[in-house]
């Protein structure tokens, strides 16, 4: 029996196409993995330096006469960032305490309170601020950029940032007393 040499047929996807397909699939996997990681991370954690953000302010609730505030401009001061909304009932529990704390710390000039109004409408937000006599700087979280950065899980949430811009404490849910607020601010001022 004689041997017949049969040329090996050219099979499979070309190498360049395989590379593109695998790179594309790897990219998709990376995107999915990053999304899952982000979803499981929770809020920003204490010890993290908080990136700069710009908060536009409601008229009547300006900071230092300016209609917007940049976090980086507040370096050297303790910053208390409170996420709230007028439709949020638990926020009402702490509104008076926050305002009282602001009244106490405002004269020192070492502490700044920022209210960030989350997914709210301005007329209702203004009614809320008026109802609880809030006087510290307040503004809307436009396009929810700031709350997305902080990865908030709901409102109210309050973040205490020290003089170096490092997050020191996260309060998820409402404060039940002014002592709770003092307990976070006073150690940062020592």
């Amino acid at each position, binding site marked *: 029996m004689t041997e017949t040499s049969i040329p090996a047929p050219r099979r499979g996807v070309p190498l360049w196409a395989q590379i593109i397909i695998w790179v594309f699939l790897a990219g998709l996997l990376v995107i999915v993995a990053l999304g899952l990681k982000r979803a499981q991370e929770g809020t920003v954690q204490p010890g993290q330096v908080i990136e700069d953000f710009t908060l536009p302010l409601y008229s009547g609730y300006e900071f230092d006469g300016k209609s917007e505030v940049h976090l980086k401009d507040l370096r050297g001061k303790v910053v208390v960032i409170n996420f709230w909304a007028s439709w949020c009932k638990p926020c009402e529990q702490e509104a008076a305490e926050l305002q009282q704390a602001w009244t106490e710390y405002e004269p020192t000039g070492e502490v700044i309170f920022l209210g960030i109004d989350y*997914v709210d*409408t301005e007329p209702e937000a203004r009614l809320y601020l008026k109802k609880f006599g809030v006087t510290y700087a307040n503004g809307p979280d436009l396009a929810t950029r700031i709350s997305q950065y902080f990865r908030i899980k709901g409102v109210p949430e309050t973040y205490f940032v020290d003089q170096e811009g490092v997050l020191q404490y996260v309060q998820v849910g409402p404060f039940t007393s002014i002592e709770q607020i003092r307990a976070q601010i006073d150690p940062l001022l020592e």
Partner: protein
Amino acid sequence: MRSSRIIFYALLLTLAVVALWADSASAQGPTPTDDEVNRIAKQLYCPVCESTPLDVCPTEACRQWRDLIRTMLVEGKSEDEIKQYFVAQYGARVLDEPPNRLVTYLVPGVAILLGAFMLLRGFQMWIKPSITEAGPSDMKPGSKPDQDPYIAKLEEELKKQK
């Protein structure tokens, strides 16, 4: 003479008041119905209540949003203007459809093309393995399979074995 002048001024004043009222009424527009509000609301989603269109969402936040839509309609804002306002305030995720960006359609399009290409190649290899293994490049166009030199060779070998 004096009384006719008073009547004239009274008429003038009445006309002025009516004209002012009509002007403000036309600037504000008629009160929109629930259907008109919901026509826009059903295209929006509140980030707080995920997967629930605004027109059927029962929360306080959604009620406030619907009120805002109604107010904006009274102010004479168009549907597009209202949607743009909501995107600017709360982000693009409030829309029921993604914004019309190139990447939104490019990535799925590329994925579909790649998938189709892989399927095509897979089917090609699945359907023609016997022909390719026999060396289709050696077959002349229009020749019948039984005229293939490899098949002829195979038959010859089989005959020899007999």
